[in-house]
């Protein structure tokens, strides 16, 4: 079974906005993605509105089409409540698959967390 971990961190920003850094590591595939996705749905639900997300994909090695579907859904939920979503430090194979499915038309990718932070604040 593929191993994947998801951890959250608060990003310090001025004002009322809440920004969470979500670090995803390992491989997201059919064997684990449904369970891992629940953690992020819970985060979105717990924080409520005014939430922006930065996904740190620096240690993400693989993601399947279902995990891309979840990412799209999180983007929809966060955007609907006024927040923004960005992806930082993704490996080239991850950017490649995000591009082929068209997700980079919706969510911007950045080389660093700092640049992603500027984009979501």
């Amino acid at each position: 079974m593929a191993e994947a971990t998801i951890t959250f961190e608060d990003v310090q920003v001025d004002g009322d906005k809440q920004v969470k850094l979500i670090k995803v590591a390992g491989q997201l595939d059919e064997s684990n993605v449904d369970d891992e996705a629940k953690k992020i749905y819970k985060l979105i639900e717990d924080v409520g509105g005014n939430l922006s997300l930065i996904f740190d994909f620096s240690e993400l090695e693989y993601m399947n089409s279902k995990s891309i579907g979840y990412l799209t859904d999180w983007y929809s939920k966060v955007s609907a409540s006024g927040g923004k979503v960005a992806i930082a430090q993704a490996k080239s194979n991850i950017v490649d698959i995000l591009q082929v499915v068209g997700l980079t038309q919706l969510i911007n990718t950045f080389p660093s967390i700092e640049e992603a932070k500027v984009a979501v604040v």
Partner: protein
Amino acid sequence: MDEKPNKPVKITITLPTDAYFLSGIRDFTLNMTKNMTGFSEQWSYRFQSVVDELCNNAIEHGSAPGEEIILTFISKADYSFEVVVEDTGTGINKYTAEQMQELLKEREAVVGDRYMGLRGRGLPKIVAEWTDELIFEDRDGGGLKVHAKKYLRKEEDEVILAEDKKRDPTHINLTA
């Protein structure tokens, strides 16, 4: 293709109907395509996704739990790479070859760049986009056989590699 193909290498793996085993199959696909086919590293990662998506479909729809799927890799070095995924047709949501062809057409029409659905990207946006031939075939005795084949075009790969070298190799900055 103009070049005469080398003798093909054919490897067949039978898997239980369980996504637990797919990380090992992805590792195998990546190593095989990197080392034996002549395709670039970028294409090796792409084939990893193609194989994973086809196996997921076979497990989810084609073969019932406790059954199996059959995966065959056919590599003609410096010419083509093909993967064939077979299910037993015992799954609850099994499809015939004709239904799969229709499903692919429907999904290709619906799944655009700004598609917001949770499911449905694997076949039209990953498997179909990253292969030259995608053929669905009904198996004798039931089940589906899916052939996904990509021909090596060195010129195409050289363009990709040249573009990769121009930018940071691990990160691409894109704007919507």
